[in-house]
């Protein structure tokens, strides 16, 4: 699989891949990173919002 990197598209097998995630009350965040000789060449992030924190203030004001 080809990966978009700062050095152009590269074959995934040539890169070091790492992934991570965290979850709290507000969101689930996951990311994937690819490095070439320890240089970060790709990082993508996916945030899943569980709820709208900002809208709670609106709800309190209008309810």
């Amino acid at each position, binding site marked *: 699989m080809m990966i*978009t*990197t*700062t050095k152009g598209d590269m074959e995934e097998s040539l890169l070091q891949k790492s992934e991570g995630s*965290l979850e*709290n009350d*507000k*969101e689930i*965040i996951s*990311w*994937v*990173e690819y490095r070439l000789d320890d240089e*970060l*060449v*790709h*990082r*993508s*992030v*996916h*945030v*899943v*919002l*569980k*709820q*709208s*924190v*900002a*809208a*709670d*203030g*609106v*709800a*309190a004001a*209008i*309810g």
Partner: protein
Amino acid sequence: MCTSFKGELLTGTHNFGTAPTRATTAADTFKAALYLATATINASTTAYTTTGEVSGTGYTAGGVTVTFGTAPSTSGTTAFVTPSASITYSSVTLSTAFDCVLIYNSTQSNKAVSVHTFGSQTVTAGTFTLTMPVNDASTGLIRLA
């Protein structure tokens, strides 16, 4: 307060003031802009601003269009609406940490709608995807309870 009124607020049915005059029945266009972790974007924000907005390869100032494919709804005494698709910034490099997205109405003079924060992030030659919460009265992105 009448629940139907709350829902109608989300569709621009009522106008207690003198502006704006809505010349069309079409839905407005909404956009989502990303802001740096150092930016001051919050409930006091009244309109989209370039101050504090992220910049980098592949990112266009003003952000991306938000898809509201599902009309506002009500449940119990709460009116709510949520974008029907994830907000995605593809093939971007955003090297300075960002932690906030502003949703604003680009049809109505870029007036601010809502601010949503998340854990601080950077993106390198990659994609940033913001997936919406479940569209209901408890978790919908924009709720009037």
